[in-house]
């Protein structure tokens, strides 16, 4: 790599001109122009399908544009792959998983460059692990050992390794694509530190996020995309959340975002509960009750055990001690849970809540087959179509028709399909794990309002989330977990402060 010691702030480092990209019938980018300058942290924000990930993934070599030009460091830029792009100065940390589960952390970091450790065909593992550990420590990761198998780490740790891998190559341009949702406080700190360093060293960063507060905090410039077009670019001085939201969705957000009331009102009947519930290694001695018409929030850091708790409530994880009960009966397994009208929305949407290769119709109707079939057998197509249409309409799922393959939907619409699956079959209890992750603003609002409506219908909703504002905005009661135990319970109130709550989380 050439010497970049003379980096001048404000110099044009990456130029994108007239870029177009379509996926089948859907246009992702339309005549997009983008300029990135040294020393600048450029934020890209927009709803799902706006094109923000597309344009940056093309710059990072993940895919090719249909037309348009890119110029990087004054030369024509057309990387053949992400590895090629990273070698030549542009690195990207992707939203979903960018590492390989079956090999060690060290092998992931040095993927493609293992030859430097090999002598006579054998890899010097000691050297490999030492160097990899150095890389990790350098960016402040000290709780991961590079000899560990990638797959044994949790999602956040994997993400941190991915960051280390990219940063090790010292790219001139770093693209961060919705990475912070996977990270805890500490992880975010590390990432922000890197972004700051890049700014100071007159490199450049493209920062893609949904979180308006975060992006306004971190970025110097903010470009809003919508439907594949650049709408507006805001300089730091011009940052205004309402204006930005307006540009993003093209209209004013009407009505409430979260709940408008501050009361914690719910029915008396206990619908689902945990008694002295323990899953070794994850959660200990949990006692918990949820009621009819209640929104129960469960929050904490990502390892606090709440995700396991969600699975326990659905019967997907067996307890080592204690009981999980629904209507007084033990929750044996998932089949029992669904029979008892419990619905479960997983944090890992693509792997656990959806069959990506199946249609919208299949994914929605699968939980409600009993409703439109005769006896044990005959599925009535016409009734099924009605059933699915109802969900598509009421949730405003954007799809060409119910036969569209779910994989081709945007994140928000995918989540709506998952909701449709559980609401359509009349779930009385909904366990929602990170229900608005990767979902944009307009859809989020619709989901929150839906939850309010379900609460009013007497359903029990349990929200497990790492987003504190969401929990504070929606819950009747908020339970905070730490290290597998319940730390504190808060009742809904106007005076609730996030500082106080965070104190119990960390």
């Amino acid at each position, binding site marked *: 790599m050439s010497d970049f010691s003379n980096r001048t702030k404000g110099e044009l480092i990456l130029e994108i001109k007239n870029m177009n990209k379509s996926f089948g019938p859907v246009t992702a980018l339309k005549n997009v122009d983008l300029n990135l300058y040294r020393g600048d942290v450029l934020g890209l924000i927009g709803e799902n399908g706006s094109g923000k990930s597309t344009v940056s993934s093309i710059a990072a070599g993940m895919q090719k544009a249909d037309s348009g030009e890119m110029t990087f460091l004054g030369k024509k830029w057309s990387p053949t792959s992400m590895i090629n792009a990273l070698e030549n100065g542009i690195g990207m940390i992707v939203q979903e998983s960018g590492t390989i589960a079956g090999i060690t952390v060290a092998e992931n970091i040095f993927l493609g460059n293992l030859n430097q450790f090999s002598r006579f065909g054998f890899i010097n593992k000691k050297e490999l692990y030492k160097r990899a550990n150095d890389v990790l420590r350098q960016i402040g990761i000290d709780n991961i050992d590079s000899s560990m198998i990638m797959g044994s780490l949790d999602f956040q740790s994997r993400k941190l390794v991915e960051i280390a891998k990219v940063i090790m190559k010292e790219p001139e341009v770093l693209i961060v694509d919705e990475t912070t949702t996977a990270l805890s406080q500490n992880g975010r700190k590390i990432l922000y530190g890197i972004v700051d360093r890049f700014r100071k060293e007159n490199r450049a960063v493209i920062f893609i996020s949904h979180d308006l507060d975060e992006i306004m905090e971190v970025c110097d410039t903010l470009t809003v995309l919508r439907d594949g077009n650049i709408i507006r670019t805001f300089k730091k001085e011009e940052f205004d959340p309402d204006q930005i939201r307006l540009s993003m969705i093209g209209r004013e957000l009407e009505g409430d975002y979260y709940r408008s009331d501050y009361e914690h009102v719910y029915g008396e009947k206990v619908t689902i509960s945990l008694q002295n519930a323990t899953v070794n290694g994850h959660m200990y001695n949990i006692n918990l009750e949820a009621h009819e018409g209640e929104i129960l929030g469960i929050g904490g850091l990502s390892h606090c055990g709440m995700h396991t708790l969600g699975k326990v409530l659905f019967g997907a994880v067996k307890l080592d001690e204690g009981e999980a009960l629904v209507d007084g009966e033990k929750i044996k397994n998932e089949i029992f849970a669904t029979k008892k009208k419990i619905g479960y929305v997983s944090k890992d949407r693509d792997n656990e809540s959806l069959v*990506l*290769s199946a249609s919208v119709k*299949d994914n929605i109707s699968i939980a409600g087959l009993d409703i439109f079939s005769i006896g044990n057998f005959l599925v009535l197509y016409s009734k099924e179509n009605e059933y699915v249409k109802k969900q598509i309409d009421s949730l405003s799922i954007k799809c060409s028709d119910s036969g569209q393959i779910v994989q081709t939907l945007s994140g928000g619409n995918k989540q709506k399909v998952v909701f449709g699956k559980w609401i359509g079959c009349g779930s009385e209890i909904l366990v929602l794990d990170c229900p608005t992750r990767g979902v944009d603003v307009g859809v989020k609002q619709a989901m929150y309002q839906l939850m309010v409506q379900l609460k009013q219908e007497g359903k029990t909703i349990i929200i497990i989330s790492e987003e504190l504002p969401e929990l504070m905005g929606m819950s009747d009661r908020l339970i905070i977990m730490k290290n597998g135990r319940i730390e504190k319970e808060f009742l809904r109130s106007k005076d609730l402060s996030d500082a106080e709550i965070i104190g119990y989380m960390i």
Partner: protein
Amino acid sequence: MEELASRNKIKFDKYRLKKLVIALLPLVALIALFVAYLIILNANDYNVSMNLKTLLNQSIVLILVATGAIFIFTLGQFDISLGANTLFAAVIGTLAYKASGNIFVLFLVCIVVAVACSLLNAVIASIFHLPMFVTTIAMLSVLTALATFLIQSEGTASGTSFSITLPSNLVNDLSAIDTPAFKISVVVIFMVLMIFIFNFTKVGRKMKFLGGNQNCAKLTGISVSLFGIIAFALAGLGAGLGSSMTVVYAHTVSTTTASSIGMSVFIAIVFGGMPINGGARSRIYSALIGGISYNLMTNILFILFQSMQGVRDGLVQVISGIFFLAIVFVASINYRSKNLPR
């Protein structure tokens, strides 16, 4: 704005059209092959009705076994013991037929044995928490060994091998039903049943879902082991019918009976457009279309290369292999969905 909408619509219709074309490709290929076959037969002045009868005979067992097996493939599983199961069921069925003289017994025993053996795969896998494929490997050895033992001890020797043969009166009875009409009826009834289960029942739906993503299916309250068992039972039904039809046709069972079924099943369903991983895009009629297409193709190739006797067999295999790879490739293009970014 409207122009944008209509442009999007045109683009989208082209996209939908492309998807439709790819979905119909196996059927179109079958029709094309069939027409080509008729043309070649006529050009060579061959007996068309005899050749069509032969095609039916070549295809029927394969169609029956493969269609049943589609349920297993839909789950994303694989059963390597299908051929052995068919053989074993044929052996027991033939012995029962010999003892009773009743054709109905032949069919009943073949089906019951095949279903039982197939079920055993899934049940053992479920009890011991093994992948189903592993139990089918064990079944393959066990059933083959059992069948061989029975054939050698109960069968008669002729020339270089042992076989269980039937007395001429029973052979005559079988010959009476060894007709195109009967065979087509069996296939039709079976296909109707399978199509019904696959497309119109909760069982079929859940299986397709399970094959698409086992984790998600589990988290939607679908029992992995239960539907595995059902799939294997249905596959056993296909194998049982196939084995009885083999006996009806060949009037004998030897250790090489149904020897090629295992691989042929896989080839047939791939030719018919079935996705290798199963899941939502599985099609119950893949075996029907693919089985006939495959046999048509090899028959055509054998006729075309008739004169190149020395290299004919090798050439036919190579070309079949190339077609097979091409089909897998085309199917995977369709399957590799285009990722929209978030």
